[in-house]
Structure formats: C-alpha cells, structure tokens
C-alpha cells in the first residue's frame, strides 16, 4: 500500500527487523532519511561496551557510491583533496572533498577495490556533486546505498567475535585494510575501520544478507558481551577518538546559507589530507591561496579543568575576548578527562595558556555559570595500543 508522502515514515534499514525489537527505549534519530537507533536502552551501558567488550552498530544508512571505469582513479583524485595514487587496492582512506572555494562539502572513506574501482562512503547524499565532478571523465558513478548493508563491530573483543565466526584471516588486517569473504554464497567485505578509535571491523554485504550476518554476529558475540549500540554511545566514543562530524563540528559548505560558514581542510585541522603535488583537484587554487594567506581559524582538541561537560560553550582569551566555541564536549570516563572539540580563531588556536571556557551548569534546574581554564590538547584523546596493534591484542 502506498502512502501519501506527508505520511511516509522514515525509511527502514535492512536491519530494522533486528534493531527495532532491541530498541527497548524506543529512542530513534534520523539519518539520511532512515530511522536510526539513538539509544537501545542505556547510553552508558552501550558506551562501556564499546570500550570493554564488543558492540554492533547498524551502519546501513551510510551512503555508498561505486566509482568505476578507466578514469576512476583520476576522478577520485580530482574529487578529494588527498592523494589516492598511493592508495593500494585493498586499502581504505579517510578523505574530504571541497567546493570551488576550498570549503569542505563532506568527509568520508574511500575503499579501493581495484585499479579502476572504488567505493566512497559518506554520511550524507552527494550523487549530484559526484556526477558533476565526473564531467569530462570516463567514469561510472552509481549510488549503491540501498543494495549494500553495513554493520560495524567495535570494541576490544571484536576480533574474538570475528574469530568465532571463523574469519581468522582478519588477524592480519591492519587499520584501513580490507579483505573479502564469501558469506551465505555472496561476497562480503570486511574492513578494519570504525568511528570509535578502538579495535573494530566494518562488514559490507548485500542488503538481503544483512539480517543473517547480524544474527550470526550476535550469536558469536554472546560469550564476549556483545551489545548493539545507538548513535549516542557512538558519538561519545568518536569524541574520545577526536573525530569531527559535519553539521556538528562544522557546517558543510553545501548546507551553509552564510557564505562565511564554510570551512577548509586547513581550518578543520586536516592539513595532512591536502596534497598540492598531485595535480589539480576541486578547490586546489582556493586552498593554495588560503595556505599563503594563512587560515582564519582551526578546529582543536581541548582539555578543560573540572568535570562539567562544556557543551556549546564559548571560549575566551582572558576573561572577556571571545575567540571561539566548543562544538563537541564530554566528560571522558575512559580518559578521566574533561575533553572537547572546538573551533578557535587565529591566532588563539596556538595559545598555550589563558584560554577559558564558559560552561553553563544545570544543578537541578538551577543554572550556574562556571569559567573553567582549558588548554589545547592533542587528538585523539584516547589512543589505546589495541587500536592499531596487528595482530589484534588478546582481550
């Protein structure tokens, strides 16, 4: 039965039949038109499972674009700011892409399947931009989001779950490696990637096989304390990992109404993702000019005194000069630090002392303002050896 559009519900992920019954708190959020679990029942439990056991996150609403054809490599190199020539088949890379002004449109991961085949994954939809970037290139771009489901298995014990499934070959996977298996008679790709800064794997396979994989993972993970997690717990882990999120830590240039809201890779602290030596790419001329001029601001990590999360707090140099704002903040239970991701105007982004955060604290509906000193801190805030150890450490 078709419903009129104004009654059309959010789309359901291929895993909805599994995630919905487990979402006991019925807390959902929207992600690219899909209903996505915010919290199954308790965010803290889910968060601690990421850091101490194993977790499953339904990654299916992620947009996935298949890029193939003789010019595929040249095309990807034009699209993103980083070098992709050095990206070997079987490897994954984090990348951002910019508009003509060198402002970031979105970030995502690039999977190289072969010399002429890539998959680009991003949170938001970009088919129009990707197609326009392809003008003049012999390349085929296909939105395969609906066809491919994805499950993220994260946590120190995630390799144990992988092993229990009999996928021992994953032992040699280094971070950003991927490999392919046969699953229920179809192809399945496993990449050692994730958004938690922890040991973890992401599984990519045909949507119709996703439920079967989910069931197998849940079953295999029983002995390792596996638990599904929603996006709130994931968000805590990603702040500890120091990752930035579009629409949270910066405005994607394509969404911003105010022209000054766009942010360049330099302003996002992603200098290492810009390769001027590879030939032209979209935004190159603007970024070169910015490099010469110097960035106007920068995304930084902050270490804040006290234990009050500095959500949406303003940052001052001294007591009164506003020089930036916090975009993500939390008390990190794992680091035992009060951490934040913030944007600071130049030259305050290199200030070693004298930065203050203005935090509003709710003491049982009585609001108080606290001025807490802070200092710029390296990201990731949390960087355990298990994140990159290969073969995986025994937990």
């Amino acid at each position, binding site marked *: 039965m078709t419903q009129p559009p104004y009654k059309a519900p959010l789309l359901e992920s291929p895993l909805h039949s599994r995630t919905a019954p487990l979402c006991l708190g019925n807390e959902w959020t929207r992600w690219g038109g899909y209903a996505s679990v915010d919290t199954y029942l308790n965010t803290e439990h889910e968060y601690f499972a990421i850091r101490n056991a194993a977790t499953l996150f339904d990654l299916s609403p992620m947009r996935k674009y298949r890029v193939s054809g003789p010019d595929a490599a*040249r095309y990807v190199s034009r699209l993103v700011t980083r070098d992709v020539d050095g990206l070997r088949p079987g490897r994954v890379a984090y990348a951002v892409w910019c508009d003509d002004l060198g402002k970031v449109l979105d970030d995502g991961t690039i999977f190289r399947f072969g010399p002429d085949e890539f998959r680009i994954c991003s949170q938001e939809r970009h088919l129009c931009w990707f197609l326009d970037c392809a003008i003049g290139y012999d390349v085929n771009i296909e939105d395969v989001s609906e066809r491919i489901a994805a499950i993220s298995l994260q946590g120190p014990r995630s390799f144990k779950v992988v092993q229990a499934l009999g996928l021992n070959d994953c032992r040699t996977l280094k971070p950003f490696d991927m490999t392919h298996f046969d699953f229920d008679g179809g192809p399945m790709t496993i990449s050692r990637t994730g958004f938690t800064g922890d040991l973890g794997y992401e599984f990519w396979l045909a949507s119709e096989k996703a439920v079967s994989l989910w069931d197998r993972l849940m079953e295999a993970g029983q002995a390792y304390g596996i638990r599904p997690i929603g996006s709130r717990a994931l968000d805590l882990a990603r702040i500890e990992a120091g990752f930035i999120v579009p629409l949270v830590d910066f405005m994607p240039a394509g969404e911003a109404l105010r022209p000054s809201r766009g942010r360049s890779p330099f302003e996002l602290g992603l200098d290492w993702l810009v390769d001027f030596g590879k030939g032209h790419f979209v935004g190159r*001329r603007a970024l070169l000019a910015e490099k010469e001029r110097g960035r106007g601001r920068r995304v930084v990590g902050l270490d804040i005194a006290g234990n009050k999360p500095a959500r949406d707090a303003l940052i001052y140099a001294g007591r009164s000069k506003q020089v930036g704002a916090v975009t993500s903040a939390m008390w990190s239970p794992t680091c035992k630090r009060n951490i934040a991701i913030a944007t600071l105007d130049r030259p305050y982004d290199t200030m070693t002392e004298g930065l203050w955060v203005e935090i509003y604290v709710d003491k049982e509906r009585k609001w108080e303002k606290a001025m807490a000193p802070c200092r710029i801190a390296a990201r990731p805030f949390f960087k355990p050896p298990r994140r990159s150890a290969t073969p995986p450490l025994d937990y």
Partner: protein
Amino acid sequence: MSAAFDVIVVGGGHNGLACAAYLAKAARRVLVLEAASDVGGAAANREIAPGFTVSACAHLLHSLHPKVIADLDLTRHGLSLSASDIPTVALDTGGKHVVLRRDQVMESLTAHSAADAAALPAFYRRFMSYAAVLQPFLTAVPPRLGGGGRQDRLTLIKLAWAVRKLGRQEMREFLRVIGMNVADILEEAFESDLVKGALALDGVLGTSFGPRSPGSVFTLLYRLAGEAGGLRGALAHPRGGMGSLTQALASAARASGAEIRCGAPVARILAEEDRTSGVELRSGERFAAPTVVSNADPRVTFLSLLGAEHLDTGFVRRVSNLRQRGLVAKLNLALDGLPSFAGLKEADMGGRLVIAPGIDYLERAFNHSKYGEYSEHPAVEITIPSIHDRSLAPEGKHVLSAVVQYAPYDLKRNWDDAREAFTDLAVETIAAYAPDLPRRILARQVVTPLDLERDYGMTGGHWHHGDLALDQLLMLRPVPGAAQYATPLPGLYLCGAGAHPGGGVMAAAGRNAARQVMAMEGVA
C-alpha cells in the same frame, strides 16, 4: 618547447583578430591559429555560386565598436561601408509596408498609423537614453562582485550613477522596463501590429526568446547601445561583405606583427603546473606560449580544448549550464535579378526588410522552437547587399542574405534531412511578398545551427556563444569566475562573443580581453 610567442590566440574570428591586433600593437609576439582555411569565423564571406559573394552568417553591422575602428585604423586596412543608416522595412502582406529608421517618422508610418507616428520619436529617445546607460560598459571589464578590488567597485558605482543620472522618473521607468518583455512594452506604446512586430524582432533576434519572454527588453536595449557608421542604433553594410571586415582586422593584426595561420585547428590548450603552456593542433604540432587567449566559445574552450580536469566542479557546472541553443538559420541566395516586392519602393529595396508582421506572429514562430520544430511561419530579416555593392554579384545579378528565425539547433528531425524542406519554407515565406523570387534563384544555401556548430565550432550553433540575456551578461558572462576575461587557469583568457559584452560583430570583447591580458601578463 621554447616559446616563440607571448600570446597564442585560438580562433581567428573578429574578436580573436581584434584581440591579436591590440596585443601585437602593444609589442606582444602574437600567433593566431584558425581552424578554417581563412580568417573570419562567422564574420566571413562565402561564394555561393561563381561570382556571387555573400556574408556567410552575420550580414549587418550594428555594433562594431568605434573605438576598435579608430584604435586599429581599420579604415586604412580596408574597412568601408557600402551603405549606412539603412532603413528597416516592415513588410506587409497587403503591400502597405512601413519604413522605420531610428526616430525618423517616415511618410509610410504616418499613413499606416498616425498614433504610432506620434509615439515613435518619444519611444525611441527614451530607449536610446536607456541604451546610453549600458553603452559605456561595453568597453569596460565587468566588475567582480564581492571580493573585488577598487576598480570593480568603481565600475559598479559608475553603473549605478549612470542609472541614477537618468533622473528620478526615468530611473524608475528604466528599472521597471529592464526585466520586462518587449511585447508588453510595445503594446504600451504602439497600436500597429506591423510596427510592433518589426520593433520586437530586435528584442529576440539571435536569442532563444519570444517577444513575450521576460528580459527581451534588455536584449533590445543592448542592441540599441551599439552604433554603426557613427550613429547609435543604426544599421550598415560593410563593403565587400562581412568578410571584408575580418580581412581588415587581419590586415591590422599582421601590420602590427601578429602571425596568422589558417588551416590550423587547435585540438588542445595545454597546461603545466597549473598554468597554460601553449596549444596542440589536431595535427599534433605544438606551439608554446605563456598566455593563451581563446576566441572559441566558453564551452568549447573549457570543456573540449582545456578539459574539465583543470577546473573546479562548480565552475564546470556553470559552463555546462550555459544557455546556448541556436535558434537562427541563414539563407543565402544567388539571384539572376532583383526580386520585386509588391508595393515596395525601389529606394527601400536596399533596406533591411523584415517579415515579422505582429507580436503574435513572432510568438507563434517562437512556439515551435520550444518543442524542437522550426517555425511554420518564420520571422525573416532580408538584405540584398548587392544593391549597394556591385562587387558581390555579376552585373545585373544579385545576392540575397536572410536571417530566418526560429530554427532550433535541437530539431526533432535531423537537420540534414530537413534542410531542403526548410530552405523551401524560407524561400516561400519571402515569396509571399516577392512572388517572382523562386524563379530568380540561381543557387541557394542554408546555414542551419547544426552547420554553425560543425563548420564554425560554435556550441549549439549559437551566434553569440550563449544567449545575450540578463542572466548571462556583464559580470555573469559567460559565468562568474571567468567574467573578467581571465579564467580560473592562470594564463588562459577568453576573448570571444561568450565573454562580455557578447556577440553581434562588436569586437569589443576582443579589445577588452587584450587590455586585460596586457594588464595581467608581463612580456616574456
């Protein structure tokens, strides 16, 4: 590759030649590479039968910029007019034609409509005063909006001041009409369909507009901003056909030291280290130069010759979306004698004869083009240049040159199949006024928009390298990011009709581009 040239000009149309001449005069070493066997582009002659020469595409001068004529001393290089300030004759099926010439009230107009005769001078003066607002900007580099410098702000202030200088009342009126359609404005001023049709034609000629399309008033004003033979809004015939103008430009360029090679089609504009380094011909031969100026249309320049790989996506998107759908065909006839137009005085035969008897006639003709058909009853602009210029045809014989509109580039039928039927239709349309025309034809030729694309390299067969419309003019021409002749690729410039101030055998784009190159590029 050692650079023997400072500048390579891709394409030897009138703008490319003007640009080359200006640069050569400024002691730049210039090479012009033209694909065809002779210079001229769409401002060239064609011999349609032995001894019969006709302007292949563009056939009347109304905008050739006087600065270009003076700066390049074109008169000394052979430019002359065989007729100037020629009248426009609105052909009437009943033989009661109306003669129009700028603000002059002719007897035929008074006889046709006393009210229109009374209205014409005031209407004309008002429109000329509006056109005068635009006129200085034809030779200015369009201002950059936002992030521009002092010069950009100055140009904008000048534009605002030019509008303000009209006076409160006229400024208001200017702002009211500027985005309007030409049909509405003519309905306000005139009663005669014949007069309205003839005047409306100038608002839609060479565009993808009908008279009721918004912005057609602006197109009309833009045309009136030009001048010919020292008169604003006038029309003139170049002696020897349009090809003689481009020969004069080529001569001026050569005299200053520019080298011109014909039969040298450029296949690629080369770039190294994010800068132009030269060009490669279709033959594979390469020429090095630090600066390349393209007379080709923006789409050909950026997407075919240079390649999107050197450009950002937003820019490529804008270039791909340029409205550049040619809607005009050219009919060239060799005649064994003058056709007789019923009721037309012999003195008026040398004028511009237009078949556009009414706004509705034009709008209906336009309707077809929207759906990939040519007009059932097209609008036609006819000239018989051999009346003024005996060099164009053998003794006692003539050539007829006509612009036929609308004939869309993207015809549903294949143009090669439709060519004969369309030619018949065009001849029949004229024959309705000059019944003896068909039997006087010795040779006939039609240049369709598809021919224009194939033979002259103009995308979409569009004369002006993109519609001359409000959204594609001034700082929006051809697209933001390339509207000041310089392009996103350092060292590459535009000088063709796709750049400000656009087409219409004006040569101002070529001149302005040359000045911008001189301002931005040093001498090697």
